[in-house]
């Protein structure tokens, strides 16, 4: 295989694929964050903690209840989503009318409390979670060896993101949600129960973070800190993509994963900060983000 910029194409393509895996998680989480911000005006700092919760519940399902990965893939997003809906109903709802800062502080505090609780209960060390049997093994692609499970993560997350995009952009429910983002009181006057819609939206997006947590369990170690290390990057992704476009959040997530992967090839020591460099550039050149609406 030829070289590209002095790097063997095989290495390059391999890193692109690995980047897509990280990008899959960025996409699923930033998608939820973008929808929550659009509809509820809440900067959901607890999103990483819900992702961590998803991974932990998956691990608990297996070790305590004997529920396997596939059952967890269905059950865990529902459990985490219901928990999110309860949080919205009991706490967040009271904060909509006052400054953004309060909901930010609340979700930040919630994230710390959840992380602390899990560290207290299970310790800080990562818990291994086995790759489900049907997804073990590798694809030999010539330029790289791709574990089947990682291919599944990319496929599953792209499908889920696509599904959310379709619902938001092409269905009546999506039209209600978009309209409620713009003018909730008029949508209420049309007879739509907007408060209920907000609860369900928050629950759904939190459930999506839980789903990402299930996918993550066999790849990353299940640990209380797994969410907080990811969420900082995901916030940068949201800033780069800009709020206000579902498709934009998905594309930005995936492509930043790839950019991060490529940086590992060309300048490895910068790979940990490349996303933040991109964020700074975007903020200078296009403050509303790549896909955001400039007002």
């Amino acid at each position, binding site marked *: 295989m030829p070289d590209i910029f002095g790097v063997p194409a095989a290495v390059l393509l391999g890193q692109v694929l690995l980047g897509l895996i990280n990008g899959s998680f960025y996409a699923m989480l930033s998608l939820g964050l973008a929808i929550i911000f659009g509809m509820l005006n809440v900067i959901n700092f607890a999103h990483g903690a819900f992702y961590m919760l998803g991974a932990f519940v998956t691990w608990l399902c297996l070790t305590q209840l004997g529920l396997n990965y596939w059952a967890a893939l269905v059950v865990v997003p529902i459990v985490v989503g219901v928990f999110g809906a309860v949080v919205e109903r009991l706490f967040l709802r009271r904060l909509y009318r006052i400054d953004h800062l309060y909901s930010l502080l609340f979700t930040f505090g919630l994230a710390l409390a959840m992380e602390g609780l899990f560290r207290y209960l299970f310790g800080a060390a990562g818990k291994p979670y086995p790759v489900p049997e049907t997804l073990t093994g590798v694809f030999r692609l010539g330029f790289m060896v791709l574990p089947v499970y990682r291919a599944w993560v990319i496929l599953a997350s792209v499908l889920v993101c696509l599904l959310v995009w379709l619902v938001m952009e092409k269905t*009546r429910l999506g039209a209600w949600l*978009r*309209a409620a983002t713009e003018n909730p*009181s*008029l949508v*209420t*006057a*049309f*007879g*739509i129960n907007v408060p209920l819609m907000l609860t369900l939206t928050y629950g759904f997006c939190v459930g999506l973070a839980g789903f990402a947590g299930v996918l993550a369990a066999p790849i990353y170690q299940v640990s209380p800190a797994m969410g907080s290390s990811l969420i900082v990057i995901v916030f940068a992704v949201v800033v780069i993509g800009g709020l206000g476009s579902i498709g934009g959040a998905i594309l930005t997530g995936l492509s930043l994963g790839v950019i991060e992967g490529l940086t590992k090839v060309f300048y490895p020591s910068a790979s940990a900060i490349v996303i933040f460099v991109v964020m700074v550039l975007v903020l200078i050149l296009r403050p509303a983000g790549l896909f955001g609406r400039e007002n």
Partner: protein
Amino acid sequence: MHHPVRRLEVEDLHSWYGESHILHGASLHVNQGEIVTLLGRNGAGKTTMMRTLMGIVQQRKGRAVLDGQDLLAMPAHHVARLGLGFVPEERGIFSSLNVLENLLLPPAFRPSGMALEQIYTLFPNLQGRDTTIGTRLSGGEQQMLAIARILRTGADFILLDEPTEGLAPVIVEDISRALGELKALGLTIILVEQNIRFAMANADRHYVMEQGRVVDEFSNEALQSNMAKINAYLGV
């Protein structure tokens, strides 16, 4: 002589935006099939009256009953189910929705809603514009869209806030003609309007509002002979 059926009864209605007390005990009534206008200067409480009836303004007290149902006792999203439709002053066309999505947005709670063909007959400008972004329509077309989407729901009592504001005279003619057709269909309408000629062409009765109260009432016939008084109320 048959008795008019009273649809809406408002008595001593108060409402607040936060600290500011806007409606100060307003009272009015509307009968089945009537077009009733609210006249008055800016800030008299006309728009607030509509927003209070719809439940958009939640701090309120007094009495507001539509077809025997207490509007103040129900959650805001139940009001539309009584057949009350709201066309707001700023038109409320959504920029993230195309024309068809805007048109189909409000749920149709009653089977009597207009079919799309009827709507396109009433407002030919809207036909063939399905995929245009709602806010790319001209002001007049946005107004037509805002009225059309309410007609599709089967609402038979419409709150129409300044439908002619900022529109060219030829478009005002179109809206006026459409209003006449709605009246012929038996719809009941409350109209907030600055354009007196438009108001007179369409309405049965007129209320004058001042500082959050209804201070006077004229039949359409009496309006012409009380023009001096009206002009004094409106400050023109």
